[in-house]
């Protein structure tokens, strides 16, 4: 299965990708330095820390939260988060009665500009097939058990709109700064397969 792919020096894909990159470079179609720059962007600059900053700001700045509700693309762009696979953003807010979960059943659509590259499980058949029919069972595999009365809304990203879940702010964080709150915002909580960490979970 896909998630069984781990570092393996005998992986035939290693040779295949190396050969492809080499001939593309020879033919003048790609510059390996551009490939380096792309990899570096997602390794160092574009990742879940972006989304966490947006969520923490929404928790502490009601005007921003309102803007995020009305026009998420512009609201997150104001924080410098734009670009590939985040061109058209929507933010959906969890409440005690309604929990949002994001999926792309048809491929792997994911809000790159806010969460970076998707994890393997998000792109793999078990999650994509099951979360639209048995989300509670899937969330339980992430250790998340919601109250029975909480409704679940699954958003299948079938077009170019990309979704960010704004989890509920944990109790016991009154007066915290946005920077401190951002540490509680996990990637899974912004996909909907988790919730924000409780304060005591932070050292």
């Amino acid at each position, binding site marked *: 299965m*896909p998630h069984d792919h781990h570092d393996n020096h005998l992986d035939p894909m290693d040779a295949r990708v190396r050969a492809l990159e080499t001939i593309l470079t020879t033919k003048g179609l790609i510059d390996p330095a551009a490939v380096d720059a792309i990899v570096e962007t997602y390794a160092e600059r574009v990742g879940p820390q972006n989304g966490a900053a947006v969520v923490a700001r929404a928790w502490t700045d009601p005007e921003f939260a309102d803007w995020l509700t009305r026009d998420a693309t512009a609201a997150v762009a104001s924080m410098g988060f734009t670009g590939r696979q985040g061109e058209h953003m929507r933010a959906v807010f969890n409440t005690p009665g309604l929990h949002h979960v994001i999926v792309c059943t*048809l491929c792997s659509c994911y809000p790159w500009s806010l969460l970076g*590259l998707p994890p393997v499980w998000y792109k793999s058949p078990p999650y994509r097939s*099951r979360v639209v*029919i048995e989300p509670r069972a899937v969330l339980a*595999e992430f250790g998340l058990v919601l109250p029975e009365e909480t409704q679940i809304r*699954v958003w299948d990203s*079938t077009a170019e709109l990309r979704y960010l879940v704004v989890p509920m702010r944990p109790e016991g964080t009154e007066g915290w700064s946005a920077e401190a709150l951002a540490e509680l915002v996990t990637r899974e909580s912004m996909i909907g397969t988790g919730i924000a960490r409780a304060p005591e979970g932070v050292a």
Partner: protein
Amino acid sequence: MNGPHDLGGKMGFGPVAPEQDEPLFHGDWEARAMGVVLACGALGAWNIDESRHTRESLPPSIYLSASYYEIWTRALEILLTRHGLLTETELAEGQAMDLPAHPKRLPPERVPAVLAKGGPCDRAVTAEARFRPGDRVRTRVTHPRGHTRLPTYLMGHTGVVESEHGGYVFPDSNAKGEGEQPQRLYTVVFDGTEVWGEGGEAGLTVSADLWESYLEHA
């Protein structure tokens, strides 16, 4: 197409099994594959809809067993040969003649700007919207052979339009090179019981973002 990618509601794939402290890439080749795919996309020979369709058109046995970056790599090889940028022989032999830089080769200094810009897909449409928020709509049963973004698990079901987003590039035509033909896009919400009958969990709603021609009044 009802391909292997169309996974909503399918069974038998086992647990989700999220990996603890998952690395960004499992091996250097995944990082290179990701970067090479994006760098080749900048050549402008194909659009995102054609690349999605190429991935979902891989043989089902490969699509369902390959890692996602393997799917990306295999589809890239097909796109490159289809568009005349590489030959089958070059791919098979791993050798090619030295050529000067392609006019659209992505230079490293442009990477930040290109990634920060992305590829917006919203387009102006002048025709009046056929549906409004609150309308009950049914998804059309068409089973197109080519690319489509209406998942089969939502085909023929009735839902409610929640919001209208204006015009967006129509993937079904764009993937075939038949132009963007933008249509209005709607978020449609379906009750879990409507989609799954007794098979779904209680208290579930599922939404999808669907183009106007996928829908009819219910």
